[in-house]
């Protein structure tokens, strides 16, 4: 095995990327047209484009989740927050006399996202200032959030007719779906924010050892607080995308269960739930794994509710392959074959000599 390949194998991100490649290969095997992208009326069409487009809400939520998890936290309320932002935005638009004006739509989106930002800050307040465990602190809003969204829409599914709002999910810019571009923009902004400033390093420091990072002068409270806020903000945008897709605010269905998918995407990507080191690239790959899986299963004609069996299988395979016991076992296999070979390393020779 050449050294560059060995180095590649050591990278944690190789496991999720490998899983994604396998999934794509399976797809190509069953439908050769999977990788084909056709251009029609200056727009790109194809299964890959669908996956890129449909993954946007989960992408936004997972990026926020990844950062929260890196601080040893978790945010269960993202699905409810999606319901809230959609409910707020659509209620504003449906009550406005000019649902088709760009200003109304932008204003509605702004208010919707601002409200989820505030809810995110509320989560951060519970976690960072009151010191409540993240899983319970965000469970509060998981429970109450959908109730709040139902109150906003009066218990009904609010539907609207608004061309600008429809563009968000169904429009195209430069041939690419707007939804995908929003997801892409979120990735770029979050990566720049985290990796081009000290925020990423400080976040990892908090996750690795909260006490030590505090002693080293990291303002962990403020950082944790703002990351929950960011998670709320991104969930709010995801809620806008969701409601724009169906042009309705369905407070019960919007983002239902997305918190678990997002956590899954983060973990599949190789970020530990124990906090500390995180990889945004891995999270992006994790999101694509989940979305490709959903698309594959749908294509194979399996009812979409059965996707969860496949999800369970992928999770078990990926987490078990990352388990120390399995890695050690593979390591032993690798080493024993190496000592048997004539080009034994000096260390191995010393050991046999001793």
């Amino acid at each position: 095995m050449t050294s560059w390949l060995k180095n590649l194998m050591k990278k944690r991100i190789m496991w999720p990327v490998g899983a994604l490649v396998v999934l794509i290969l399976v797809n190509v095997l069953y439908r050769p047209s999977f990788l084909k992208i056709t251009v029609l009326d200056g727009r790109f069409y194809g299964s890959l484009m669908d996956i890129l487009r449909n993954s946007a809400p989960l992408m936004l939520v997972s990026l926020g989740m990844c950062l929260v998890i890196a601080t040893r936290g978790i945010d269960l309320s993202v699905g409810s927050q999606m319901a809230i932002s959609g409910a707020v935005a659509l209620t504003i638009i449906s009550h406005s006399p000019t649902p088709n004006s760009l200003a109304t739509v932008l204003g509605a989106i702004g208010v919707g996202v601002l409200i989820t930002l505030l809810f995110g800050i509320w989560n951060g307040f519970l976690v960072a200032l009151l010191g409540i465990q993240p899983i319970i602190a965000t469970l509060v809003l998981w429970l109450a959030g959908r109730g709040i969204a139902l109150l906003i829409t009066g218990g009904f599914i609010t539907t609207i007719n608004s061309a600008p709002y429809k563009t968000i999910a169904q429009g195209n810019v430069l041939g690419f779906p707007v939804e995908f571009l929003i997801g892409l923009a979120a990735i770029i902004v979050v990566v720049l924010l985290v990796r081009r400033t000290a925020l990423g390093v400080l976040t990892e420091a908090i996750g690795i050892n909260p006490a030590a990072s505090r002693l080293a002068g990291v303002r962990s409270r403020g950082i944790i607080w703002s990351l929950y806020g960011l998670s709320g903000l991104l969930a709010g945008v995801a809620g806008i995308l969701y409601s724009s897709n169906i042009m309705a605010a369905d407070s019960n269905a919007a983002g239902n269960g997305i918190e678990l998918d997002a956590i899954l995407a983060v973990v599949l990507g190789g970020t530990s739930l124990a906090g500390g080191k995180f990889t945004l690239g891995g999270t992006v790959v994790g999101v694509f794994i989940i979305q490709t899986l959903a698309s594959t299963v749908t294509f194979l004609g399996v009812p979409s509710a059965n996707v969860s069996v496949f999800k369970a299988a992928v999770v078990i395979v990926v987490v078990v392959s990352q388990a120390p016991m399995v890695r050690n076992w593979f390591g032993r296999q690798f080493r024993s074959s190496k000592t048997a070979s004539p080009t034994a390393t000096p260390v191995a020779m010393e050991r046999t000599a001793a």
Partner: protein
Amino acid sequence: MNAKTTAPLTAATSAAPASWRRAVVNHPSWFPVVASALLLILLFAGAQVKFGSFVTPGVLSSLFVDNAYLIILACGMTLVIITGGIDLSVGAVMAFSGIIAANLLQNGVNPTLVIPLMLINGALFGLMIGVLVQYFNVQPFIASLAGMFLARGLAHVFAPRQIAVNNAAVLSLNNHKFRFGDWYFTGTVIIALVIVLITAWLLARTRLGRTVYAIGGSESSAKLMGLPVARTKVLVYVISGTCAGIAGLVFTAYASSGYSLHGVGTELDTIAAVVIGGTLLTGGSGYIFGSLLGVLVYGVIKTVINFAGADQAWTRISVGVLLLAFVVVQRAIVARASRR
């Protein structure tokens, strides 16, 4: 309630009628349980004043009948949470067990065979999660999430549509009412209370229970003390899974059907009830009796909202607010205990 938390230790112990109070002060882990008991009484009193006829044998009886499955799930979950773990699979395993039962019963299989199968099914899911957690170092959250996806998906593979249950024996668990004056209880309630007694006995009186608390307090210390940590950790998930299987039976009788979408989100309801009952999510502290109170608090809120005629939106909001109030109180207690 607040006065007691802030009262200095000496004042509490020197107060004359305060032998029970001393007991609470000396056992900080009892405090959340006492608090939820007080809150339950407060809820009853408030509802009685507001609605006039709330605290009646009928309402109290139906409180237990409607929440029997949640009581059973909460018992298993309490054990898992005390070890510092979590089990997200319970709702899905409950639904899957129900599907298996409904399927077999529809094909004329005898309930005496079906019921053990449900329990074994639950235990197997628990075993899978426990092995993943203990031997493959998977975090409990993720391991049980995988179990949840698997159970929910398999349930849907087996039966995409609702299956009616017509078996008289299973239905009588919920429909046959043992009446004592205006009070009544059903087979499902008996099952739930038996589970409460068994798990409470396990926790309080057996080596397993001691080990469960020890693991929650500090897993490495428990290991150094020579306690069977690995076996116990797997076992609590098996117990929780078995409880989910039993809950599947109870819920099938209650809903008189098996359906893959039964109990969606029940796992988080269960966790909320356990936390309201005073069990700390960090592990090491908690009581089955507290979880029972937690489920009852949860159930009373739902009943109150039904009485008030409010919609599900308010149910969710008030349960959320109540959960918040509880964790804040808990947090204050933990902070106080660690300062001491």
